[in-house]
């Protein structure tokens, strides 16, 4: 683990230990502190972590392998629907979550392969547009697969999805420990945090592995990578499938936290949001992506609580709704980052070199 840390920490183990301990304490204390301000804030944090998970999944595709996926939310949707169908009264099936999550990941992965196989041989732009279309197709199917056999329940969505049950704890209920009440959102927080830690470790290990280096080579120069004996099509497909399965897992967790899903939660807007998070933080940089996802998850909420009252105070009426402002923010974040800081807020060293170099790339 230590080799992934900045030099000054590596050289000084005491600072490292204290730093890690402080972070751990802060992360453990966080939900209890937030809970004092209201459970809504814990819930918000949980969704932020979910977005971090999604961004890390997309980062494998966009950041590591350099493939633009504009329909990433579709894999999230697949995972969410797999969970909802296998753990709700809708079909009357109630499987435990640790059976469903791998199934969800697998199904999402299969979709990823189905989609990637025909397109990954071609230029990157086609992948972008095909994934964009795929996102729409999945939504159309979710909306319409209620006839003639009611599979997805159409636009009405699936409700009363089972919550996660782990170690005898039902995450949907409040558990009392002594006279302290541990509510469901706090339990989900710790669950998500552990998933996040696992995912981050997988990502860190992946980045410097043989596969990770091959992806990097493909991203930098596909032709050169192929000449070096890398099976580019297979590795691109692997990146795509892996990103998809991360999305599937996140979708399953989303289903159980939310307890209700409908096609409306899986629109292009969400795909673009996740992409914006990856771009803002720095494509290919794991910590950057975490930062980007957290920023773009919380800023809109802050806007919601500040901009709307401010408008009422200043103009006496609402001119810009917070979620319109949010989308404008995402749009501008992507354009401005690409123009002025293409490697993101926390650039990865290699990515920065690549994105600022201008003697390669465009065939213009």
């Amino acid at each position, binding site marked *: 683990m230590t080799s992934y840390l900045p030099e000054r920490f590596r050289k000084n183990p005491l600072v490292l230990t204290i730093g890690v301990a402080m972070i751990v304490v802060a992360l453990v204390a966080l939900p209890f502190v937030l809970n004092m301000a209201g459970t809504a804030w814990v819930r918000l944090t949980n969704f932020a972590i979910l977005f971090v998970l999604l961004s890390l999944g997309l980062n494998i595709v966009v950041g590591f392998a*350099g493939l633009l996926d504009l329909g990433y939310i579709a894999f999230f949707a697949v995972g969410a629907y797999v969970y909802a169908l296998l753990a709700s009264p809708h079909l009357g099936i109630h499987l435990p979550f640790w059976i469903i999550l791998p199934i969800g990941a697998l199904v999402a992965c299969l979709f990823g392969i189905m989609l990637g196989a*025909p397109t990954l*041989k071609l*230029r990157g732009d086609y992948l972008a547009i095909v994934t964009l279309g795929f996102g729409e197709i999945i939504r159309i199917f979710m909306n319409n697969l209620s006839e003639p056999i009611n599979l997805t329940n159409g636009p009405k969505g699936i409700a009363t999805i089972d919550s996660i049950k782990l170690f005898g704890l039902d995450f949907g209920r409040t558990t009392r420990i002594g006279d302290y009440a541990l509510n469901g959102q706090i339990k989900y927080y710790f669950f998500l945090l552990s998933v996040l830690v696992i995912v981050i470790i997988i990502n860190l290990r992946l980045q410097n592995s043989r596969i990770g280096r091959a992806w990097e080579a493909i991203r930098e120069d596909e032709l050169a990578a192929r000449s070096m004996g890398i099976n580019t099509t297979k590795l691109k497909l692997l990146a795509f499938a892996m990103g998809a399965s991360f999305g599937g897992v996140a979708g399953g967790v989303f289903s159980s936290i939310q307890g209700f899903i409908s096609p409306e939660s899986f629109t292009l807007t969400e795909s673009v949001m996740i992409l914006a998070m990856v771009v803002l933080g720095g494509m290919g940089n794991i910590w950057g992506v975490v930062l980007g996802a957290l920023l773009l998850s919380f800023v809109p909420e802050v806007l919601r609580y500040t901009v709307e009252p401010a408008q009422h105070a200043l103009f006496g009426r609402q001119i810009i709704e917070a979620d319109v402002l949010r989308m404008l923010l995402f*749009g501008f*974040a992507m354009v401005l980052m690409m*123009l002025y800081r293409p490697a993101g807020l926390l650039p990865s060293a290699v990515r920065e070199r690549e994105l600022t170099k201008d003697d390669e790339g465009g065939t213009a």
Partner: protein
Amino acid sequence: MDVFLQQLVNGLTLGCVYAVVALGYTMVYGIIQLINFAHGEVVMIGAMVAMSVILGLAGSGVPPLAIVLIAVLAAIPACMAVGYLIERVAYRPLRSAPRLAPLITAIGVSMILQHLALLIWGRNYIPFPQIVKTQTFALSSSETAATITNVQIAIMLLSIAMMAGLIALVYKTRIGIAMRAVSQRPDVAGLMGVSPNYVISFTFVVGAGLGAIAGVMIGSYYGIAHYQMGFLLGLKAFCAAVLGGIGNLGGAVLGGILIGLIEAFGAGYMGDLTNVCTLSKFLPGFAGLCEANSNMAVFGSSYKDVFAFIVLILVLVFRPQGLLGERVSDRA
């Protein structure tokens, strides 16, 4: 036969609109190998501006046809300005950057335009003012005859005129020669006294102008305008451009019309073709299902938006260069 003829008319109309939008994609792609994701949004802005002008002038005593003409003449420069700005601000600085960069700005610009439109025109579906009275002509004398409206005729004629005009522009004029030169080798074209920046801007502006007219056409055909209307339209038009062979003007026209026809016939026949009850003649097991509900279509016309993508994926698998295109380089 009447249903067939009706879907043919509808498909051709829709196909003409797709073709005009696809021309915008294909021109830009042909010249700088960039998918201009924001093109669909330009079309939407064209529709919105025209709608505002028509609403503003309706009832002012100006003859209806003149109002429509003024609306189109207002939408064209508005879209051209948007098209120019997009190129100048978001794409030109990134022309020598890796491919991923302009694609990301393109999707960002598309989001920005959509939500600016939302701010100006609101988030509801707006009925597109039908200022010119719709007249319907029957194509045969039977009672269930297929019909064609004056709007459909106008859309088709206008599209054909624009396609012809564009092809004349590219193949017969000086600027057309310059465009083709830049698309082959921008740096060499520069040495020959062509300004690549000017030519590329010009291409965006022409594409946006076509988009504006397409926006007015699609708005008056569906009778509705919405801030997200450009998204699906743009995607389908892109599929059309790829089907025809991206970068190829004739291909865009062919692809557009084919996609329009596929969609219309798909929507018209899909429900019947996948109706479980038609199977019940052969498979007795289904008969019980059909007694309760005689319309047990597995895939109804609500899947019509899916066809374009299926075509896109099939084309990419079996003929990535498209129907009329040259081999696509597979450089990443």
